[in-house]
């Protein structure tokens, strides 16, 4: 199989590391060669963060470049706009509708673009947007919006639900299993 690429983008602290680990474990359990590339350190402090997941028969480079991603999952709207150039023609962009103002917007040095999802759609991008934050709150914690989005990705990939649920259980502490499984279900049923 040719290598497939999934990119997870968001704001440092939104839980993209966990999301990439869950996807990575799902893919490994399905027998793929997998590479997951993370960002640690400086940019985790509220900066724009990006994580790459690649899988196939044999994966070489752990990074994804412009025009290469089959799926981009964005935890935040502005980040969806920032990283859309990484999407392959015909790829899917899944984004949370959450908006977090970056510092230049807060200080008035720049403006947060309006109607990002519509504008992306107009570019011919397949955009799937969801209010992951509200769903996560419904599941029990705003922090679980990353797992809500995992549910949404699961519906775009052909692996049994059980595989995803096992991976979630593997990656989160036991006392948070129920909350995250619920968040996953809510995302899956969007």
């Amino acid at each position, binding site marked *: 199989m040719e*290598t497939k690429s999934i990119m997870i983008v968001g*704001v*440092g602290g939104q839980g993209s590391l966990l999301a990439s*680990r869950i996807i*990575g*474990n799902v893919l*490994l359990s399905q027998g793929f*060669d*997998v*590479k*997951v*590339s*993370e*960002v*640690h*350190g*400086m*940019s*985790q*402090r*509220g*900066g*724009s963060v990006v994580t790459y997941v690649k899988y196939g028969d044999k*994966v*070489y*480079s*752990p*990074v994804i*470049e*412009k*025009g*290469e991603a089959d799926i981009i999952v964005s935890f935040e709207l*502005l*980040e969806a*706009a*920032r990283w*859309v*150039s*990484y*999407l392959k*023609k015909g790829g899917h962009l899944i984004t949370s509708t959450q908006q*977090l103002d*970056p*510092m*230049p*917007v*807060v*200080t*008035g*040095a*720049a*403006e*947060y*673009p309006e109607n990002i999802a519509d*504008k*992306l759609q107009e*570019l*011919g*991008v397949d955009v799937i947007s969801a209010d992951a934050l509200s769903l996560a709150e419904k599941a029990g914690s*705003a922090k679980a919006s990353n797992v809500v989005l995992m549910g949404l990705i699961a519906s775009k990939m052909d692996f049994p639900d059980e595989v995803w649920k096992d991976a979630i259980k593997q990656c989160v502490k036991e006392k948070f299993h129920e909350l995250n499984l619920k968040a996953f279900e809510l995302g899956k049923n969007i």
Partner: protein
Amino acid sequence: MKKLMLGNEAFARGLYEGGCRLISSYPGTPSTEITEFGAEYDAMYAEWAPNEKVAMETAVGASIAGARSFCGMKHVGLNVAADPLYTASYTGVTGGLVIAVADDPGMHSSQNEQDSRHHAIASKVPMLEPSDSAECRDFVKEAFEISEKFDTPIIVRLSTRVAHSQSSVELQDREEHDIIPYKKNAPKYAMVPAFAKARHIVVEERTKKLTEFAEKSPLNKTEINNGKIGVITSGISYQYAKEALGDGVSYLKLGMVNPLPVKLIQDFASKFDTVYVIEELDDIIEAHCKKIGVNVIGKELFGFIGELSQSIIAEKILGKKTEFTEFLEAVPVRPPVMCAGCPHRGLFYSLAKNNIIVSGDIGCYSLGSAAPLNSMDSIICMGASISALHGMNKISGKEGEKKSIAVIGDSTFIHSGITSLINIAYNATNSTVIILDNSITGMTGHQQNPTTGMNLKGDPASKVSLEELCKAVGINRIRVVDPYNMAQTEAAILEELTVEEPSVIISRRPCALLKYVKHKPALRVDTDKCKSCKMCLKIGCPAISIKDGKAAIEKTQCVGCGICTEMCKFDAITE
């Protein structure tokens, strides 16, 4: 069992399986997790040392005492540890000694982009370079073998993409290596000139033997495919090249990057019309090729700056470009910021407000250099804040002393700030130093340090008293402030700047992200009282923004630190 592992986690696994007994490191992105994962194995003793030099000397000592040992650091850490490295190269080892150094091409989290292969060449120590997690594990084990066989410390070089990418690793069992009984051997270990002269001869002989080893070692792999193009590469660049060029070219993948083989390269190159060298940062392999009469193309295409990637290689060699769609409006940048509740925030606002020249240092507080705080004048390397301030003040005199200050974190102060403070006391400038004591090594992800009262394992440990320490080196004016109290902190800064005596202000408040720190409820804005003056935005808190013309506080982020209430003149921010 197959497991998805971070390069750094696989590195730690390699230490475990390779029979390592001691780990002593200083944190630094992207090397930190090696030691954190290593500490999870009970078979290995693991510690955070105060700095890289101490870490390396500790590992050298453990090696002399007969155990396989390890120390890890980021690229700039090796500058700090260079002194022991260059002489440990002469003494060689008893138990195997492996050193991890993690380079950061692209500077994701670093202050420079140095290529640590230069250190391997200059210290005449062998260096391996893995290209994925499985190789991290395998190369570490092989490194211990090489270290003991050739009687040398050995460096394993990582780069950010190898250290921080996960790929699968097949786990193996630990091989125990008994401690080699200690034997006094001063001519080998006591490097006075007479003995060192003899050891230098041994080192040059060793390099010859290591070069012979490099000619045949399976660490250096040739992959011959069809076509007239050959590629010489190593580490992560190999993965990029394979993805870009596939089986259309042939490869010489160098797993050992110092010393480099001669015949192997000459033989490989002789088979092709064109040979490319693909390496990040400096032209180490390329320069070697040219020196041994092999004509290659390298830096003229790829340059010396930043990371490579499959698309750069595809474009430069194949002329291929990938198409993509771009968002048509400007997308505001999102630089990292101090977290909501960060105890450093208010202090930097006060420094900026009073136009104080800030001799800065490295840590979370380096973010004080960004807008809207814009309050750092210089940042060089760990510890430089205090020594550079001393130098500035020697030149600018009394007037300068009254408007310049040094800021340094607790971990950084212990790392290398203390010797600088001694210089201020000893060589007398009326400098003012602020120690930002957030009770943790924050920037690198919360490592314990000698001021926190806990060790790497989380067990209670001896705790340095910063007050006593500063006093003991000859500073008489020492005061402790709570940075959440901005007025008190600002008053202390202004007072200490005017006194004609060196002084230290300890700004003490634990990092808001520490688990034991209890947060107050989120604050909220009374929109009737808010006059839209935007004073609260001047502290650059990520929880505060303007919604419909009024200040708004994001409740999932706010930890109730109250700095913004001190900024607000209209009492519009309340609990």
